[in-house]
């Protein structure tokens, strides 16, 4: 059977996901040639990836670079597989990440992949994170096929960071206490961050301040005196700061991460310092609009921003430690293309739509678009104005489940960065709002006002489309309404880019990588084991962070050795329910007995 048919038959039967990837495109910029030794080789972007003479000789060279003691090997670059020939004969688990679907398709057509597919797990594209669970990364070693670094440098960096951070997190059982704001935009980001950290494998203990929001606002009912309200609310916020410190003392996290507007004051941070718990803050705000960073930033060990340049300089001037740029992102679990019913298409669909709050510049700018089939969604709009009449949801809050439907249903999604001072587009606007990533992650076509940082994140014209004036916006609306194919192409490319580079998992990996690097080898501090591991006393010391576990261990004398018999003596299935710790201990007992 010809090679291509053989490969495809195997893929179809055994690896339908790879088969789908094969079917979903062509070999693009891959040009197949014959080597001097008669084997198929290829050029990518006009550069030969394998030797044009004897590619088969790459095998031993590549294998010799990887220690035979490595039993779990991750490789970047499938190519035509010559470099893998020797390695895959070893007794090791091998995962191959091929960043380019084009090269993969070309490999399917030109080389027999049977052995590689049998021996290795092959992942094409950027979806490798789903394979990076704790067991999969156990004692894993990552290596790159060198020629790939030339084309896929950022892809490799992305993989390498994900790999390094996840491996570390798994090995060290990293625990992060995540503190969110009482209310406002960063609350949503807080939830996405929590989800992303958990997917990375971090144990997240959230301090969800929104539970206290109603009390905070209720203070306003106590007195009409504004000054008194402010004083009381400030005292309340300080109390929450104390709460954060108390919880940290109890939880003993390896890192405390605060989101913008989290209720933490200088006293809280000093308290953390005493406990030797490093602190980080993600300031997902415009530094020109909110200025509390001036007071707080120097007290954090790590400070992350969505703006660069001037802001970073300012931060350094006031003595902030470890400052780094960390733009917003999307959460693919929430921000994804959705199938709509006919009724939903009618309700949420329009040629042009906008979803967001009614900031001053938007209310004004959108007056110039009222001759379009234009639906507006969001909160804080003046409903009785001409623009306000286009608002579809009467200013009621919408959750992401619902607003992704708008993104999917609209032909063009408008995104205009907010301002309460300007009348329209901010010509000096720098940071990129989350909507840019959310829209792209949903596979929705969008037009966004140009921002200084945008081009470094998404390629204008290919992955996203921009405007700098009302005129340009109108021209582009007219053009793209007529050119559906181009809209779809840009939207698809945008989605791919966001899934690869701009998810909250990407961001949290970067954030953790910075902390891991910044804290050095002693991070996180060893939870030391003194004495015999199964001595109750030792276990109590090690389990100090788990009050339920301590409660269980108190059933035994500190100086006795815990044995399976003793555990089982305490637990009897069918005699009342088990707590979390008892359930775990029961499983432990059974597992050890089987062993």
């Amino acid at each position, binding site marked *: 059977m010809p090679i291509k048919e053989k490969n495809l038959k195997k893929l179809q039967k*055994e690896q339908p996901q790879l088969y789908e990837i094969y079917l979903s495109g062509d070999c693009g910029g891959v040009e197949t040639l014959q080597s001097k030794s008669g084997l198929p080789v290829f050029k990518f972007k006009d550069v030969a990836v394998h030797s044009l003479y004897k590619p088969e000789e790459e095998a031993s060279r590549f294998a010799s670079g990887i220690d035979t003691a490595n039993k779990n090997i991750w490789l970047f670059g499938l190519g035509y597989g010559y470099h893998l020939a020797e390695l895959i004969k070893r007794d090791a688990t091998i995962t191959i990440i091929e960043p380019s679907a084009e090269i993969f398709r070309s490999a399917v057509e030109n080389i027999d992949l049977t052995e590689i597919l049998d021996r290795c797990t092959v992942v094409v594209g950027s979806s490798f994170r789903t394979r990076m669970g704790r067991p999969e990364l156990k004692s894993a070693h990552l290596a790159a096929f060198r020629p790939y670094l030339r084309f896929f440098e950022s892809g490799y960096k992305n993989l390498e960071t994900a790999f390094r951070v996840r491996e570390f997190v798994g090995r060290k059982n990293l625990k992060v206490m995540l503190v969110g704001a009482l209310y406002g935009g960063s609350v949503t980001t807080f939830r996405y961050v929590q989800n992303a950290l958990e997917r990375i494998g971090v144990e997240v203990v959230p301090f969800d301040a929104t539970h206290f929001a109603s009390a905070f606002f209720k203070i306003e009912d106590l007195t009409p005196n504004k000054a008194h309200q402010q004083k009381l609310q400030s005292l309340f916020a300080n109390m929450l700061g104390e709460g954060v410190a108390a919880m940290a003392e109890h939880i003993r996290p390896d890192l405390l991460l605060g989101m913008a507007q989290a209720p933490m004051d200088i006293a809280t941070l000093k308290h953390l310092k005493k406990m030797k718990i490093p602190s980080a803050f993600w300031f997902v705000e415009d530094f020109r609009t909110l200025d509390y960073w001036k007071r707080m930033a120097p007290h954090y060990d790590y400070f992350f921003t969505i703006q660069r340049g001037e802001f970073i300089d300012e931060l350094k001037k006031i003595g902030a430690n470890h400052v780094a740029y960390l733009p917003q992102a999307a959460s693919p679990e929430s921000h994804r293309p959705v199938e709509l019913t006919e009724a939903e298409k009618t309700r949420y669909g329009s040629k042009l739509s906008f979803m967001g709050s009614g900031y001053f510049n938007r209310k004004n700018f959108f007056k110039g678009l009222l001759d379009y089939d234009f639906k507006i969604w969001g909160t804080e709009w003046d409903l009785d104005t001409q623009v306000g009449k286009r608002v579809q949801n009467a200013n009621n809050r919408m959750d992401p489940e619902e607003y992704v439907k708008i993104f999917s249903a609209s032909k063009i999604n408008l995104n205009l960065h907010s301002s309460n001072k300007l009348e329209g587009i901010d010509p000096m606007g720098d940071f990129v709002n989350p909507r840019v990533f959310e829209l792209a992650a949903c596979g929705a076509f969008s037009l966004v006002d140009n921002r200084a940082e945008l081009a470094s994140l998404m390629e204008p014209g290919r992955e996203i489309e921009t405007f700098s004036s009302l005129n340009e916006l109108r021209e582009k609306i007219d053009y793209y309404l007529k050119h559906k194919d181009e809209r779809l192409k840009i939207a698809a490319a945008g989605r791919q880019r966001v899934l690869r580079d701009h998810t909250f998992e990407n961001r949290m990996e970067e954030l953790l990588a910075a902390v891991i690097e910044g804290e050095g080898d002693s991070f996180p501090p060893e939870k030391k084991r003194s004495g015999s591991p199964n001595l109750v006393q030792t276990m109590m010391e090690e389990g100090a962070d788990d009050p339920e576990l301590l409660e269980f261990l108190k059933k035994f004398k500190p100086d006795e050795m815990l044995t399976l018999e003793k555990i089982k003596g305490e637990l009897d299935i069918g005699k009342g329910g088990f707590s979390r710790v008892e359930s775990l201990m029961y499983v432990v007992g059974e*597992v050890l007995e089987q062993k």
Partner: protein
Amino acid sequence: MKKILILNLTRIGDLIQTTPLTAGLKEADPDTSITMLAHTNFAGICKHLPNIDRLLLFNVKQLEQGNKVAILDVYRYIENLVKELKAEKFDMLVNLSHSPMTMVFAKMLGIPDVRGGCASDDGYRVTNDPWFVYFTGMIDFRLYNRLNLVDIYQIGGGVKPAARGLLVESEGPAEAVKPLLKELGIEEGDAVIGVQAGASLKERRWPPEKFAVSADEISKRKNAKVLLFGAPSEKELGDRVASAMRQPSINLVGKTSLEELIGLVKRCDLLITNDTATMHIASAVGTPSIALFFVHAYPVETGPYGEGSITIEPDIECFPCSHGTHCPHYDCFNRVTPIDVADAAELLPELKNHNEPFVAPEKFPTARLFTPFFDEYGFWDLRPLKKQRLREHEVLGRIYRHLFLQPYMEDADSKEWIGYLKRNFELWPDEDRHGWIEKETAKFRKLAKVASDARRTLTDMQSEYKKQNVKKLQRLAKKLPELDERISTLGHAHPELQPFVRIFEMGKENIPDSALGLMFEKTRILYKSLIDATAVIIGLLKEWDEAERPAAHV
């Protein structure tokens, strides 16, 4: 996208037996993502099983330090595993392991739809899916069960069986063993038979010396080369077979990797085996087997899941015995002779020419031979190769099968089970049958009577409860456990009632300690099901009697 977790910590054979379930889940919705949590010792086979998107391994061994392990390390490991699995937010869990440990584990995962055992809030076993109730209870009524485990796994997991065979990826392994075959001197066109004399449970192993005689005989008759397979722990067994054989053999016991085993089994023209994982591999790769079942191994439950093979079991009253039996004589091993096995091999080519028993009555005097097949609804079944005396449990087994599978065969001929008995067995004389049916009907009636009493008591309790008449309620409440006890006693007294009784008992276990009103209602449904099912059986028995009676009497 539906996310499903399959928990299967048992052996290689069990893992292979889940492949029709995973295939069916993918057929129903190709977007379904399947995660398998298996024991690290069996990771090897999982690589050859299709339709698993993600494999997670339960591996406590890695925590060992110098053969010792810290309890807290295991505790953290399991805690993290639970956390990781919870974060995946699975939609469904299929727990194919029986142990209480996996039930507590399953409970911790908090997955909304659990098929199979799971601990309840108050620490009891709950099995919500009726098929897993059947699966769990089956151990107590195996003689009356006519459903293969593979089919039960499928229905329990929400997949209708459709003659899907076992799936083990074998093209790669077949290619990989080519050099080895050459090295062993096996040429293309050579007849090759495989012998697997091991079995995971020692007491189920037919003696290796008997395997040796069979292998010699088949090798002589077919001019075949003989390969001996087995795990490293079965090395001694392999040596015993090899040294007892007169013909040359190639002893590969303990020397093959799993991949090689798959490739070699595929190359074989025939496998002679106990009830083993190798047998399941043979079914998956299309190699016919002569599969031997002794002691508590029962072909109905775990026979080769595919057509074209033969199962042999001893013709002895005590077969199959209960799990855990340590027999004083193991006479069942002697009921099947090595020549029986060689003669059975001769029958393989003929299987496809016959739909009914075709083996002469004097052959295989102390053994029973069956061949597996898929019925017209896609369910696995066995039929005998030799017409034999009808035994009581055959009738009831067929009736139960008919009853339990009814929801899956809408247009079924309601008398098909009678046809099956007629085709395959020597039926009893009229008077005997009639007498037996009367006797059996009486037993089922007795069960229905107790269940009706219990239901009536419960109705009284419900009305006293409404009236808040505590005293009367208490008196009635004492009566109910007595009636339940009588139901259990009847099950023990008449094993043919056990399928209903066990399912009833487990149904009771599954009712949570919740509001009294709800408990009443759930319990009432259980009694009603018991009464209704009993009536159906009585009706079917009557139908059989009428169908068999000479026309004049009707």
